[in-house]
């Protein structure tokens, strides 16, 4: 909850940030948030009109791979300035005196983001081919942001070989969890042996998939969840988006469970101005399954370790074999180069 004394401080901060000293803060509602952060909806009165905002603040338990709120906000600002369809970045408050922890405020975007609903409910998102094309164009705009960027100086230097770096990182996480998973290791070894030549580094979203953008009845309203962004290989984002594990049951719609892959590729290629290496995207789809499997094991470990007892986290651990099946199917012995 946000206590009354905090509301006064928040109202003053927001009024000054928007240069609207007469701003009054009305209702504050919790929004369904991630496990990483708390989200609140703020309804304000300013200049004779009602306007709604989203406030994001760290939740109690955060995982190591998540960026600080300040960094996430800076990435959002850069993306918004590049013309990408994101919530409007309003301001970031570093002062913990206001709400007890730093927080970001963005313009509220209407729409539905929940992956299973977006995939299943065809009354959402408008024409699905056009939605996939639009998402392809938006992703290409993200990939148009190249290093160096002064506003993103906090990002780690781009790795010369992002695929091999990803494999190293996943192995290190498996070791840290004491997880002996031969099927994942089989996939990681295949990925190590078959990594395509990396493309020049660009800003990658890092979690670009159905479930992390919002749609209304017309189409796309915002691309969300920038906390895993960094310099990387652009095709990693395309592989994550198309991976079978993010189709929410609509397996035949290879672009995020919403449309044929070709529609998504078409939008991306039109914006980026070069053809997509489809084989490399399919490579990154294998890596996507490996990455999601390791995240699922990490989530289960939060339950197993006693840090965060939760049936939902516990059950997440049990979906790993299904991801392992997908990895093994894509890496049969005849797929290995001699």
């Amino acid at each position: 909850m946000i206590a009354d004394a905090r509301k006064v401080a928040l109202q003053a901060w927001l009024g000054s940030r928007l240069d609207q000293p007469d701003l009054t803060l009305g209702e504050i509602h919790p929004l369904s948030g991630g496990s990483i952060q708390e989200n609140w909806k703020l309804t304000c009165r300013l200049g004779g009109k009602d306007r709604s905002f989203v406030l994001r603040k760290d939740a109690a338990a955060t995982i190591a791979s998540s960026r600080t709120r300040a960094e996430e906000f800076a990435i959002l600002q850069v993306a918004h300035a590049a013309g990408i369809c994101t919530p409007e970045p309003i301001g970031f408050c570093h002062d913990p005196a206001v709400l007890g922890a730093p927080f970001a405020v963005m313009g509220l975007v209407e729409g539905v983001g929940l992956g299973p609903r977006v995939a299943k409910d065809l009354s959402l998102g408008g024409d699905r081919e056009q939605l996939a094309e639009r998402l392809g164009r938006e992703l290409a705009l993200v990939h148009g942001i190249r290093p160096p960027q002064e506003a993103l100086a906090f990002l780690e230097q781009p790795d010369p070989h992002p695929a091999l770096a990803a494999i190293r990182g996943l192995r290190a996480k498996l070791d840290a969890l004491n997880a002996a998973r031969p099927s994942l290791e089989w996939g990681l070894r295949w990925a190590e042996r078959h990594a395509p030549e990396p493309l020049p580094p660009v800003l990658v979203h890092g979690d670009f998939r159905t479930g992390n953008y919002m749609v209304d009845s017309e189409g796309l309203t915002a691309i969300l969840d920038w906390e895993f962004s960094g310099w990387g290989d652009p095709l990693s984002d395309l592989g994550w988006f198309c991976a079978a594990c993010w189709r929410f049951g609509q397996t035949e719609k290879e672009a995020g469970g919403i449309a044929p892959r070709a529609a998504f590729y078409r939008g991306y290629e039109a914006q980026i101005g070069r053809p997509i290496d489809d084989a490399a995207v399919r490579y990154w789809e294998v890596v996507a399954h490996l990455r999601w499997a390791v995240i699922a094991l990490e989530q289960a470990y939060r339950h197993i370790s006693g840090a965060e007892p939760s049936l939902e986290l516990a059950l997440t651990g049990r979906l790993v074999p299904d991801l392992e099946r997908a990895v093994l199917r894509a890496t049969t012995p005849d797929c290995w180069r001699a």
Partner: protein
Amino acid sequence: MHDEPSGAALLKTAGEALAAEIIPTLTGRARYAAAMIGNALGIVAREIEQGEEIARVWDRALACAGPDASRETLVAAIRDGRHDADHALHAALVETAEVAAAIWKPTALQRG
């Protein structure tokens, strides 16, 4: 000798009662939580029933890495490249993943 019905059969019946009598009366978060409990009951029931099969497929996978192999030694051997494109190991790993995926969700294998 265990009493009848077996633990697995009891869990299966409990899951059916939950699905038929409890879940339809719930909405929102409680319905979601009850559905998760139903999933968990089903997983445990299938895991008990499949106990011998789980042991068999893992024995077969570990046998590919030689006598006295453990999951840890198999992992190390795969990382070292000692099983690249190994047909026997791949087939055995597919079995371990399929058995476990079907315990997680019986319909998983139908999706191909």
